[in-house]
């Protein structure tokens, strides 16, 4: 029920308009379309063009596909630089990611057709295998990027990572003073829980979210509910039990956070080193091809 003054799009908004859409659907899936066309042309021409005796990487057609593939690999690996080199200009990392994903997938078709399905125990096949490993780890990356962020946000419940760690430390301080009246054996359990580092666990625990030998869980099991005392009594054991319960749930939040972050990042530890290996193998492959020409 009101009149809003009309404000046509002005210079500033043109300058920085950012469409609210994911990298996968960027610009109506422009790069998916480009990649599909590329694959289609490659597949159709593969069957259209007759190479004798059979398709192989050394024919003019194979060289063409190989050149396209090699250029793509080099360009795809430049994403790592683009991401870190914040220069001025009208580029968008989202567009780069979008192109990276779809053109990277197209590389499966181009690379495979380039081989002419001739694989063996040599540097050429090594380059192909490394490429496929990079692409497969990338597919995992796309899958977790598309599915996990929402659960990361749900778990955080508006807390930052350092706030979670601080909250745990606050519980620990209270736990420490609450445990003072306890006996030797009981306080040892609490001390063990307090002394166990939050981040000193292996990659296995972090990824699976299963923390065997968790001292907090053990202490909590020891101080199991004792219904002989009235609820909310001032007994130090009840206080410790309540605090241990809070510690456990805070720890769980941190662990879930670490798990999701680890799942989101773990593939990069394959994707990037193997990319570097791929670039080396690719160089060897290209040089050897020209050497034996």
């Amino acid at each position, binding site marked *: *029920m*009101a*009149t*809003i*003054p009309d*404000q*046509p799009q*002005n*210079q*500033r*908004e043109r*300058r*920085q308009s*950012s*469409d*609210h*859409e*994911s*990298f996968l659907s*960027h610009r109506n899936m422009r790069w998916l379309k480009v990649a599909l066309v590329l694959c289609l042309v490659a597949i159709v021409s593969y069957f259209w063009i007759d190479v004798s005796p059979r398709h192989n990487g050394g024919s003019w057609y194979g060289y063409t596909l190989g050149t396209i593939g090699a250029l793509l690999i080099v360009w795809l690996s430049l994403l790592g*630089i683009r*991401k*870190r*080199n*914040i220069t*001025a*200009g*009208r*580029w*968008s*990392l*989202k567009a*780069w*990611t979008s192109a990276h994903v779809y053109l990277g997938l197209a590389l499966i078709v181009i690379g495979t057709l380039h081989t002419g399905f001739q694989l063996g125990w040599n540097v050429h096949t090594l380059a192909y295998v490394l490429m496929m490993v990079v692409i497969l780890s990338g597919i995992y990356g796309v899958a977790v*990027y598309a599915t*996990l*962020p*929402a659960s*990361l*946000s749900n778990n*955080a419940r*508006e807390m*930052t*990572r350092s706030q979670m760690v601080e909250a745990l430390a*606050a519980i620990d*301080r*209270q736990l420490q*003073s609450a445990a003072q009246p306890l006996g030797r054996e009981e306080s040892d359990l609490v001390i063990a829980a307090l002394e166990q580092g939050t981040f000193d666990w292996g990659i296995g625990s972090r990824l699976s979210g299963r923390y065997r030998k968790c001292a907090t869980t053990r202490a909590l099991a020891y101080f199991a509910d004792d219904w002989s005392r009235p609820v909310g009594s001032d007994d130090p054991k009840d206080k410790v039990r309540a605090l241990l319960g809070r510690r456990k749930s805070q720890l769980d939040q941190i662990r879930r956070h670490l798990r999701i*972050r680890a799942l*989101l990042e773990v593939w990069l530890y394959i994707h990037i080193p193997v990319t570097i290996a791929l670039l080396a193998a690719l160089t060897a492959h290209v040089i050897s091809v020209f050497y034996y020409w």
Partner: protein
Amino acid sequence: MPVENGKANYRVAIIGSGPAGLSAAARAAALGMSHMLIEKTDHLSDTIFKYQKGKHVMATPSNLVLRSDLDFDAGKREFILDTWDEQIASGKINVQLNSEVSAITGAAGNFVIEIKGGVPIHAEAVIMAIGTQGNPNKLRCPGADLPLIQYQLDDPGEYFDEHITVVGSGDAGIENALGLAADPKQNNVVSILNRGSDFARAKSANVKLLEEAEAAGRIFVRRETAPAEVRPGELVLETRDGQETIHCDRIIARTGSQPPRGFVEGCGIHFTSEDRGAFPKLSPSFETTQQGIHVIGALAGYPLIKHCMNQGYDVVEFLNGNLDLKPADEPILAEKFSALPGVRTVDQWLETFRNNVVILQELSPLQMRELMLDSTVAGYDAGEVIFERNDPGSSMFGIAEGSVLVEVNPADPTITVPIEEGSIFGEVGLISGRRRGSTIRAAEPTIVMELSRTAALKLMATAPSAARAVNAISIERQLLQMFGSGLTKADVAQLVEAAELVDVRAGQVVVTEGAEDKDVYVIRRGSMIVEKMIGGAPVFLSYLPAGSCFGEMAIVDGSPRNATVKAAIKSEVVRFPGEAFVALLDRKPALRAKAMAEMASRREVNSFIESPKDSFGSAVDMYSETARFLIDNGIGEATDVLLIDEKLCVGCDNCEKACADSHDGLSRLDREAGRTYAHLHVPTSCRHCEHPHCMADCPPNAIKRGPDGEVFIDDTCIGCGNCQRNCPYGVIRMDAKPPEKPSLLSWLMFGAGPGPGEASYSWRKKTAEKQGRESPKVAIKCDMCSGIDGGPACVRACPTGAAIRVTPEKFLTFTKLSEDAG
């Protein structure tokens, strides 16, 4: 010392030993004028004394020459204070410390300055340089004068084995209590009293720490409790359940402070207006309405050290009869005016502007000078554009010579409305904080002055007639703009006459659904949200930015209000009585037809939102809740805000790294912190508010709105931290510019330096030390990457598309939000 009737009688008494008072005393000593410098505390220059240790004090404005017998240049707090102490001692300056002035009586030639608990001082003239800090509020209960009460806590580590009670529930009180209880070895019993039941005035981080300390038994927090009586060693408390007496060795009272205005007015000095921001009325020689009493420094409206010191010098020179002294800012003004055609002196130009521009006619020459320092002047040839439609800008223009033309119709620049000599323009941008509504050209050779937002607001606060004139003109122009061409000033004169300005609190309802009232409103500043009860719950219909009109449907078709309109943030609306509006519509049938057509289209929009409520109820609820969440988080007053879609955000923090790498290596955004609703996250990052809170109290006026609408801090920042405290969203940080990092390539190849993004604090500190650089801490905030081709780096650098920048009027719409929620 001149002695008369056995009493010391000075030529001048200077109250307050800040930069202004010190400089005045030094000048008086140099001239051999009998004087006394009176200071409340036991040291000189208390405000600078209280700065944190080692703080780098700045000397802005750099183009202003220092005119004082004391030295001052940018440097460490200790060095500046030592220099002054030494020069005051060697300059034979009379200082009386520990003397709080309680009253000034008498008249010019014979003032009596009463000193609390001391001998009165007699002087012919008084210079007041007491600043704006004021005195701490005293406890209001019996025993408030006892020595166990103190109003400041310098070092919480110096108290042991004491029962200490902190009174006051603000940040100062909480921080004191936490400090006193921090080390259990000190063995203090610390209590904090709060009159209310929650700590609403304090930062949430402080409240959290306090609650934690309370849970751990380190601090006793007494809620709904106030001191009733102070006795030696005891404190009587007024609690909800009656009186209670506790053991108490020390009371720390942190209940705010009293601005000095009451004291100043008590001395017979008039202020320019009732406004809280008003200053004492002053003559060109700093004399107040009480003859013989002069006011200089921050109390006179000059918060910068250099200004203060210059005024201290000038006022004593004036007192000494040197009336031809030109102020130190004369060369700055001369340079400003040199750009204008024709050869005139500074005084002549000042008079031209003051006489010709109507709203300035009431100003004193001193105020005129000051206003001019914060303004710019320019000459335009006929036809030259002064500003264009949709340019951002919050300054106001006054026409000193010539006239301008307003292009009222964006489609046809030949349709113009003239604004004559002496009038103003641009005031809509000033009041609403929004973009320019139309393009303005010079009609003939024209000379205009552009008053910065700060200068214009100060003018309106100090000159009530200027405020009235600006308001009347802006209401009239807003009406004319609303109804398009077709109407003349005469048509709306009656409406302008009947218009009334109404302040609206955030959340206050202006129009209630179903009510029968017929008034029409225009939003002058702030913004409103429109809600309608659908199925027993309020549903968010739309967001109205400043400049919008609402409430006119009721008078067009006579129906009751069909929706509720309430303020999203603190706002100001213009209310037009319904009858005057009806009269206008009756006179102008074309206008009524236009209004009817507009209404039909709006009904269509409303019914579109109302219809899915039955079928897709949850989508509408979601939209409504999301809109409300965003408004609660300051989007209502934002012009451009960064949002993160947490369904896409992988937490790589590339936005923060990009921010740091595009701005001297410091990030202006904290992605992780901030509120989230339905996976829409509002990170800690500048909203570029329509009326920025940070601008409210910036001594060097370093915070400005830039050409793309961004609010930015320029390099005259003195690092005082006011903006950081004033920002309700916590987006300003104080930090030193870090040293240059090694290039990206050398990091990639050789691992040199800390890599992309903000370097760790320790790296910055170590590298700066190694390079022997010392840079002061200054305020740092988002500038929307102004001047960087491509726009904000945070958005460009997001790999998944999670980071988006939005404007409220574009984003808070049903289509946008429901599409994004889906």
